[in-house]
């Protein structure tokens, strides 16, 4: 289990790795960055969620009692941090 404090670092590192694999340049990864305009499309997001489930053993978009789909990178990270606290 990865401590909540390093969830953010793990997510950002995975995003960079997926973008590199697809040879996509990403904008600066700020919290208010809109996910679907970040250069990541829904396929890359899907892969990100699958890899994070493997790494963090967390899938806040399937397991959460009140499911939501995040719009910004900040929302996305927060969903994992919240799931990690439970």
């Amino acid at each position: 289990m990865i401590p909540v404090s390093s969830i953010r670092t793990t997510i950002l590192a995975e995003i960079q790795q997926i973008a590199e694999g697809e040879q996509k340049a990403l904008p600066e990864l700020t919290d208010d960055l809109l996910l679907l305009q970040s250069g990541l499309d829904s396929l890359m997001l899907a892969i990100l969620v699958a890899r994070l489930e493997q790494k963090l053993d967390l899938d806040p978009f399937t397991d959460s009692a009140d499911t939501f789909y995040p719009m910004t990178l900040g929302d996305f990270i927060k969903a994992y941090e919240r799931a990690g606290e439970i």
Partner: protein
Amino acid sequence: MRIRSLRDCLGNASCSAGCHLRGARGSVWLGELLGATCLGGRGAQLAGRSILLRTHNPLTAALAMVELDGVAQRLVICPPDVASQHVPSIIAKAGVDVLVSDGERGEKGAGGLTPRVHAGASLSPCGPAALSPVATQWVLLTSGTTGEPKMLLHDLAGLTGAIKPGQLDGPDVVWGTFYDIRRYGGLQIFLRALLGNRPLVLPDPAESPTDHLVRLGAHGVTHLTGTPSHWRRALMNPAVRAIAPRYIRLSGEIADQAILDALRSVFPAAAIGHAYASTEGGVSFEVTDGREGFPADLFGRKGEVEMKVENGSLRIRSSRTARGYLGEPESVLADNDGFVDTADIVQQRGDRYYFLGRRSGIINVGGLKVHPEEVEARINGHPAVLMSCVRSQRNPITGALVVADIVLKERESCGNGKGRELEQEILSHCRKALPRHKVPAALRFVKALGLTETGKMGRPHA
């Protein structure tokens, strides 16, 4: 609702309301079609012909469908994403003798030497169609697979079988859909709008998802349909705030509990349902209790749609199923009792049935179909690989992802930390030949693959 042809719907149109088709590139009130044409007045020449309808503008396709139903002997509807390379074979198999298109002559995929009639989204006046309508055969294509699209024969009675007058056609209903109207799911909504004499906001393949959402909102769409993947993508887009549908319907993919719950929390006042429908099986049922899967008591009912499970898959018998395949004498759609095998594997848990995936193993990645065999063939072409099994992994964003289990020729080749390197090598081998959604999201090196009793590779579902 029994109508002889789509043109009959135009007679119902009153000037104050009616079916306005609102496209991204323009709008038309369908009542205008009564004394007008989108085909330069050449509709009469198309009587009894077998027509391929292939347009860039979905509004043009909608107008041509209304003008040609009851006139053409056969109307083959080409969705926008069908590759040009498949057009000659569609023309040959469907015996097409006229191409109706809004493209330029000589444009790639325009059908070669097939005679062509130009269609446009602006109407010109013409005399009334004097012909008594014929029962046009509709031909719909199933979504892009590795091979050629399959063609399914339908007729207007079957296509409109699930549309009941007085249902979902109140005076303030405005339809919208994320589906293209040249696919079964979108065509259902187009026909609903037309028969119910209600406006429809047409999606356009050339428009961004954000612009589409804004336009849906601007026209005050009340009834909106799409696949779970369409809806997930919409919910992740801030422009979703532009829309306020009060009726939401999902179909075309497995609707999981997560998307149903998320829609409920974003649109608390909306009626949310997921429907089971396919190009082969037609519209079968709708589930409105907000839960994934469907109630077991749908089986054994007599009525317009009958259902059973055989060999694990859902079978449907109704007047709404396709009449058969076109150009494939070896493919049989229905069994001797008239049941169509949907190839969707279902499992009963308690008083409910759940969808597990496709029998054929076809993986639906956000609406794009993947045949596991194609991916396996590519992986197996890597010199270190003995065999592989490609399967579906559930995913909350795209519904599913492609993953692969791989048996190596020499197990040592992934030992000593070389696994990661080999993984990257196999993935880049896949990327060179496969579109992105077919490249496995994860690889797993295994000792052996499970085989079924018949010696075939077992494809575990979901």
